C-alpha cells in the first residue's frame, strides 16, 4: 500500500468541525455587538460618574473621566433635600406618591384585564367579538384626545387632583393592551382543560382561580412588568391629573431638573434621574426570566 502513510498523516474528519475563534464572521459579529452596546451604555456611564462627583470636579468639564473623589452627597441631596418650588424635601415625597399610585393601579388593572381576557377567550358569550373589537379599538386612539374629557369626568366624580383619580386613569388606559395580552395567552391554553374543569364542576371563578391563573404566571409577570414600568415612567397623566402635593416621582424629577433658580447641580440631577429609574430597572432584573418566557409563550404551543 503506497499511500498508507499519507492517510495516516492526514486525519479523516471526525467529530465536531474545528472553528477558528478569530474568524472574520466572529469579528464582525462581536465587533458590531460590542460597539452598539458601548454606544448605548455611554449615557448611562456619564450619568453614574457625574452623580458621584462633587460640583468643582464637574466644572472641570471632563464628563467621561471617572470621579477623582467619590461622593454620595448628590444622591442624599436628591433623595431628601432637593427643592421643587417651595418644598425642599427631595424626591422622597414623589417616590412614595409613585408607590401609592403604581401598586393599586397595577393590581386593579391586571385583575380586571385578566378576568376580561379570560371571559373573552373561554366563555364565548354573545357579542364577545364586538366587545373585544371595541376594547382593542381603544388601543389605537391617541391618549391626548381623551385628556380633557377625562379632566371633566374626574372633576364630576370629585376625584380630580386626587390619587384615586389617577389610579382610575391608569387602569382605564391599561385595559386594551392588557386584555389583548391575557386573551391571547388564555386562548393558547387547550380548550379541553377548560371543558374538563367544567365537567368537574368548577364554575367561572373556580376555573379562573384554580386552573387558568396557576397556568398563566409568565403572562402575569409580563403584565406586571409592562404596567409597573409604564405607570412608574408616566409623566403626562401625573402632571395633568394631580396637584403638586400628589405629584409622582417623574413629575418631581422634572421639576428638580428644570428649576431655573440658582446653580445647575448636574450631579444632583443625575442622581435624581437614576433614583427615579431604579424601580423599573429592579422589576426588570427580578422578573427578567419570567418576562422572556411569557413573551415567547404565545409563539410555541405547549
Amino acid at each position, binding site marked *: 500500500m503506497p499511500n498508507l502513510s499519507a492517510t495516516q498523516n492526514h486525519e479523516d474528519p471526525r467529530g465536531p468541525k474545528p472553528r477558528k475563534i478569530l474568524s472574520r464572521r466572529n469579528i464582525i459579529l462581536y465587533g458590531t455587538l460590542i460597539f452598539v452596546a458601548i454606544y448605548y451604555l455611554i449615557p448611562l456611564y456619564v450619568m453614574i460618574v457625574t452623580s458621584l462627583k462633587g460640583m468643582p470636579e464637574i466644572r472641570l468639564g471632563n464628563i467621561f473621566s471617572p470621579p477623582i473623589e467619590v461622593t454620595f452627597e448628590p444622591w442624599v441631596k436628591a433623595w431628601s433635600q432637593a427643592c421643587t418650588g417651595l418644598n425642599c424635601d427631595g424626591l422622597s415625597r414623589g417616590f412614595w406618591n409613585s408607590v401609592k399610585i403604581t401598586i393599586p393601579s397595577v393590581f386593579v388593572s391586571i385583575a380586571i384585564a385578566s378576568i376580561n381576557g379570560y371571559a373573552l377567550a373561554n366563555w364565548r358569550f354573545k357579542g364577545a367579538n364586538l366587545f373585544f373589537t371595541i376594547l382593542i379599538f381603544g388601543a389605537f386612539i391617541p391618549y391626548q384626545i381623551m385628556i380633557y374629557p377625562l379632566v371633566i369626568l374626574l372633576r364630576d366624580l370629585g376625584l380630580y387632583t386626587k390619587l384615586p383619580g389617577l389610579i382610575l386613569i391608569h387602569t382605564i388606559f391599561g385595559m386594551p393592551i392588557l386584555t389583548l395580552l391575557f386573551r391571547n395567552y388564555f386562548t393558547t391554553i387547550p380548550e379541553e382543560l377548560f371543558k374538563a374543569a*367544567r*365537567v368537574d*364542576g368548577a364554575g367561572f371563578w373556580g376555573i379562573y382561580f384554580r386552573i387558568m391563573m396557576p*397556568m398563566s404566571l409568565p403572562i402575569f409577570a409580563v403584565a406586571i412588568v409592562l404596567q409597573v414600568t409604564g405607570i412608574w415612567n408616566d409623566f403626562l397623566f401625573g402632571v395633568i391629573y394631580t396637584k403638586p402635593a400628589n405629584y409622582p416621582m417623574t413629575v418631581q424629577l422634572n421639576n428638580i431638573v428644570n428649576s431655573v433658580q440658582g446653580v445647575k447641580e448636574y450631579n444632583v440631577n443625575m442622581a435624581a434621574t437614576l433614583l427615579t429609574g431604579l424601580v423599573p430597572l429592579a422589576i426588570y432584573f427580578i422578573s427578567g426570566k419570567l418576562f422572556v418566557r411569557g413573551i415567547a409563550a404565545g409563539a410555541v404551543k405547549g
Partner: protein
Amino acid sequence: MNSIEIKKLSLNFGEVVVLKDLNLTIEKGEFLVLLGASGCGKSTLLNCIAGLLDVTDGQVFINGQNVTWLEPSERGIGMVFQSYALYPQMTVEGNLSFSLKNAKLSKDEIEKRVQNASEILQIEDLLKRKPAALSGGQRQRVAIGRALVRDVEVFLFDEPLSNLDAKLRTDLRVEIKRLHQKLDNTMIYVTHDQIEAMTLANRIAIMRDGLILQLDDPKTIYNFPINKYVAEFIGSPGMNFLKGAILPNDKPIFKLDGGWCESPDLSNYKFQESIKTETQIWLGIRPESVAVGGEVKNMPVNFSLEVEVIEPMGADTLVWSQIGGQEFRFMVDGNTLVNVGDRVTVGFDPAHASIFDFDNEERL
C-alpha cells in the same frame, strides 16, 4: 331502563348545520361507539350530551331526567378527553380530587374514592407526581380516573386513545373494555378508528354529516352495511367494489363492467326486494371472504386472476389484483406461496357479499 335518550337534537353553528333531528336511545350498561370520519359531528354530539355545547333544539335525558339545561357537572357524567386535559399544576391526586372538592365532599370520602379509583387503574404509585412526569399511557389512566372518582352513571370518551402510539393503544383498549365489564356503566365512546369501534362496542353508530347512518351491533354492521359508505368505513383492508349490473332473468345474474367470462349467479344473496329490471350496482366483497385454493370449488362463484402486488402482513397476505379492469383484493393465508404474475383461482359466496344500488348507494 334507558340510560341516555336523545330526542330530536339539532345543533347549528351559525349557518352551518352540524346535527339535525337526531334521535338516539342508549340502554343502561351499554357501550356505544360513535364512529365516523372527522367533521361528521360525533364529537359535537358527545359535547352536547356532556352539556359543553348548548343545543339549538331538542332534548337530552340522562337516567330519565331532562338534563338539556343542566351544567355538565350536574348531569352525572364523567368525560375523558383526547389530549388527557390533566391540570398541569396539580398532582395526580389533585387532579383526581378536584371534582370532589368542587362538590364539597368530606375529606374521608374524597380519600376513599381517590384510593379506590387509583387501585382500579393501578396508579397508586403515581399519586404524588405531576402530569408532566407521567408517560402518555399513565396520563390517560389518570384522565380515566378523574371520571371514575365521580361515581357517575355515564362515561363519555372523546377519542381517548388517538394520542397514544399503536402498542399502548391496543393495551389501553383492552383495559377500557375490562373496566366496562367490571363497572357496568353506560359508556359512549367517540372514535374514527373502526378497529376500536368493532372491538369495544355493544353497538356502533356510524355518523356522517350530522346523521346516524346505521346503528347496530358490530357484527351486523360488518356483515350487512346499509350503504356503500358504511361498507367502505368498516373493515380493514376495505371492501372490494365491483361495478356492474344485475340482469333479472329467472335468476339474478351479475354482469361486470369490463367483462367476465362466466355469468355469476347471485341467487344466494338476500335481496331486500327482488330485482325486476336491469339495475346498475356495486357488488361489494370483503377481501377476507374471498376463498382460494381447495375451498374454491365449494363457492357458487369462482374465477381466476393474475397477482399484481402482494402485501405480506404476517398471519395473512393481501393480494392485489384486477378483474375486468377493476381493482380486486383478497386475503390468503400468510404461509401460502404467492408470487407476482401467478394466476390464482378464487371464489366467493354471494350470501356474504353486499350489493348496493349504483346511484343512491343504498343496500339492495
